[in-house]
């Protein structure tokens, strides 16, 4: 898959709180993610990684604080940020085929020549021969491939990945790492939470560790980064 130069977009989280009732999922999170940066999020279960990614995708409105994009947006809403999001759930329809799913989202995203783009991605994720199979007949790894293909449809400038390697076999992980390298090289900003995906964690140039919704470590260099990446890959 060829990757054109991507528009570089950075993210700025300012004092973000997210509460669910009395429970803080995020607590005063302030971060500046530079355009083109690749950041790995680490932390225990329930530390706030998923919530932070959903706030970045503008799927969750913070209880307090502000999320801004640079260069500044003139509009608001998830679509205009050109965000690709891979979540825990596959975010595709089990009752549709792999091709129907991708065509649906390609048309919604108003991609020119959607069929051509879908063909390319299906070939890339190794599902071209299963294009007409219903997603519900797929294994977890195959579903994850469709999920990743969906997130990459519009060649997003910001990629938000929540344990993207979940369910992928070693070949799938290699493909994902290679794809992310290419996207990163083209200027995409990547924010990912990892869990046991060492091949992908090698991409990260910055590590952020969360605990109880707060940032407890943020580093770009040296042993601290390795320690965070090791924690993420554990």
């Amino acid at each position, binding site marked *: 898959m060829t990757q054109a130069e991507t528009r570089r977009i950075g993210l700025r989280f300012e004092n973000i709180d997210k509460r669910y009732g009395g429970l803080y999922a995020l607590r005063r999170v302030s971060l500046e993610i530079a355009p083109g940066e690749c950041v790995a999020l680490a932390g225990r279960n329930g530390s706030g990684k998923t919530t932070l990614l*959903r706030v970045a995708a503008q*799927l969750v409105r913070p209880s307090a604080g502000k999320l801004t994009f640079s260069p500044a947006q003139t509009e608001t809403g998830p679509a205009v940020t050109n965000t690709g999001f891979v*979540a*825990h*759930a596959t975010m595709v329809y089990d009752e549709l085929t792999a091709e129907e799913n991708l065509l*649906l989202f390609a*048309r919604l*995203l108003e991609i020119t020549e959607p069929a051509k783009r879908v063909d390319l991605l299906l070939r890339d994720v190794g599902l071209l021969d299963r294009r007409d199979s219903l997603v519900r007949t797929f294994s977890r790894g195959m579903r994850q491939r469709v999920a990743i293909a969906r997130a990459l449809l519009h060649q997003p400038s910001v990629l938000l990945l929540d344990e993207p390697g979940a369910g992928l076999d070693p070949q799938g992980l290699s493909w994902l790492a290679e794809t992310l390298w290419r996207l990163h090289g083209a200027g995409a900003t990547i924010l990912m939470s990892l869990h046991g995906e060492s091949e992908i964690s090698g991409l990260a140039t910055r590590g952020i560790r969360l605990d109880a919704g707060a940032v407890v470590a943020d580093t770009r260099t040296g042993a601290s980064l390795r320690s965070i990446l090791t924690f993420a890959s554990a």
Partner: protein
Amino acid sequence: MSLLSNATVLLGKELRTEFRSRELLTTTVVFILMVVVLFSFTFDPTREESRRFGPGLLWLAFLFAASLMLQPGFLREQTNDTLSALRLSVSDPFAIFLSKLCANTLFLLITELLMLPIFAVLYNVPLLGVVPQLALVLFLGSLGLSVTGTTLSAISAQARMRELLLPLLLLPLLTPLLIASTEATAALFAEEPVLRWDWLAFLIAFDIIFLTAVWLFGEYLLEE
């Protein structure tokens, strides 16, 4: 234009998934058939009684069918978090609601059209002379059911006890619509059928008010 093109694409998805599985239509048609047949056996109404009680019975059956049919609309989108994928893909979130509204109205109308001949035979109510007028009442009533039901389905999908919440919220809210639809239908079932424009105007106003409210505030319904 983005709104309409997105809504059209999503409507295509709704129709494709439903006509592939036929889950909603089959369940609802069977359910409504049982209600109409059981009422017929239980009360064994005369032709005069059918004219008096038939419209109320018919709209109650449609209301029960709607509460059954509308529940999964947004619930299905929770299974794989596809609602989030849709929100990330459409430029106007109202497109998501609009497509579900159109699909629900269509499915409800199909159910009603399948049921009417059976109702006419079981209750001995001649409908052939008032088909266009009845179609208008059914359309306006079903649109009102769908607008309200789809909105509440979006609200209840994110709540606990969601299966109970939709009927609990839906039934009281739809009481005015139920009365107006029943009265308009009763006027068509009378010995000398007449189209009651006052009740039709009420139905149109109900539909417009709810549609406008959802258009203005619908974005918040889809948020987590």
